[in-house]
């Protein structure tokens, strides 16, 4: 998802009986559906895990602006341009809400940013794919935001209060993102033959990377088991992927486009679609830094950070000067 392959303590989930009273009270509160707030006691593993997960999620929102920002100046109409601009602006906001949530756990935003820029912290694999045509703006909104929504809606109930509240805000805004994407796909799919081909090509390229967003099967993972016990992960990766395919396949059909999977078919008995797994070797390779755009994305973020430095320092110096003059005038 926007946070992929997050490692927890690596140990099995403790039973309530094996916990010290503090931790037992913490876990019981979570089991009862209560929220953990910044001032509350929490296990160190929970705190560290959340910083990694929320931080990675925030980085994904920020880096995710790049593939779409790529088309703002070349949108086909002024209206489309304004819409895309608003969408990308929302993503900046999502990044900010999430950084703020992570900051309550005792990490600074600058530290998280430095860890992103050095490659120590990751962002979602999906944003290392290029956006080659205007139809990709449709595919990204429809599929990528669609997949993100699958994961974010249940996270509104996550145990950490600031994270849950950030998710509520984000989910309110995401629906617009997916719908504007689908709207572009409808236009293209029902347009000229060349437009229809472009839409099909975008679906071909974004289908499997979108399925990868959920991460490899984690049914056996101790990390996932711990995250689920802590309610910072609400569903298994396979569960969400299945939900996504079940929702998306009929939409592709409506568009008259073909999902690039010859094994895709509806199973009447289970009520679910059967589908092919994405290429997990490719997924791990992209995570390692070898995707088509990894270098470009990190370079863009580093450049923005370096070139924005004088603004950050200048405004801080100006604020300090104003503060001093105000004191002197008193």
């Amino acid at each position, binding site marked *: 998802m926007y946070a992929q392959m997050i490692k927890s303590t690596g140990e099995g989930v403790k039973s309530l009986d094996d916990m010290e009273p503090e931790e037992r009270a913490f876990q019981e509160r979570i089991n009862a559906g209560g929220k953990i*707030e*910044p*001032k*509350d*006691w929490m296990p160190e593993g929970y*705190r560290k895990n959340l910083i990694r997960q929320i931080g990675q999620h925030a980085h994904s929102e920020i880096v995710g602006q790049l593939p779409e920002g790529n088309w703002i100046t070349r949108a086909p109409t002024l*209206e489309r341009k*304004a*819409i895309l601009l*608003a969408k990308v*602006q*929302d993503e900046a*906001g999502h990044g*900010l*809400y999430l950084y*703020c*949530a992570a*900051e*309550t*756990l*005792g*990490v*600074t*935003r*600058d*530290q998280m940013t430095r860890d992103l820029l050095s490659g120590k912290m990751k962002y979602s694999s999906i944003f290392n794919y290029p956006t080659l045509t205007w139809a990709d703006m449709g595919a990204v909104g429809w599929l990528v935001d669609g997949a993100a929504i699958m994961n974010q809606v249940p996270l509104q109930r996550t145990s950490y*209060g*600031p994270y849950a*509240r*950030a998710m509520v*805000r984000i989910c309110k*805004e995401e*629906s*617009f993102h*997916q*719908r*504007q994407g*689908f*709207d572009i796909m409808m236009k293209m799919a029902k347009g000229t033959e060349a437009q229809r081909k472009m839409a099909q090509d975008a679906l071909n390229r974004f289908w499997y990377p979108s399925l990868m967003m959920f991460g490899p099967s984690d049914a056996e993972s101790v990390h996932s088991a711990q995250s689920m016990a802590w309610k910072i992960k609400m569903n298994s990766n396979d569960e969400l992927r299945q939900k996504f395919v079940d*929702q998306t396949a*009929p*939409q592709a059909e*409506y568009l008259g486009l073909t999902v690039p999977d010859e094994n895709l078919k509806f199973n009447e008995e289970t009520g679910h679609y059967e589908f092919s797994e994405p290429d997990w070797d490719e997924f791990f390779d992209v995570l390692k830094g070898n995707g088509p755009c990894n270098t470009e994305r990190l370079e863009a973020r580093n450049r923005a950070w370096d070139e924005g430095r004088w603004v*950050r320092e200048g*405004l*801080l110096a*100006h*604020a300090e000067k*104003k*503060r001093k003059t105000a004191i002197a005038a008193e």
Partner: protein
Amino acid sequence: MSSPESSPYSDTDAAPHGKARATEWPLWEIFIRGQHGLSHRHVGSLHAADAEGAIKNARDVYTRRNEGVSIWAVPASAIAASSPEEKGALYEPANDKVYRHPTFFDIPDEVGAM
């Protein structure tokens, strides 16, 4: 989204007023009063060099969909509020971007919920 000032992790790098925060813009808590709201409500936090910047940022981050008519930005102990005169200029851009709301897009019934 509450402030790290309330964090129990005073011994981490990110402790309030700690070294790691020295080069960062200070953190502000943002309170918004909605059109029909009776009082300001905490909506989240953000970084800004000063109160003016905090309010401008809050306008971009927390009121893109007409969520509010008044903003307070609160650093540690002081409170800064947006002035009523700014109302027009602050919210006009949000009013004419109706496409930010999902209902702007007609999705055919056959497609199902989205």
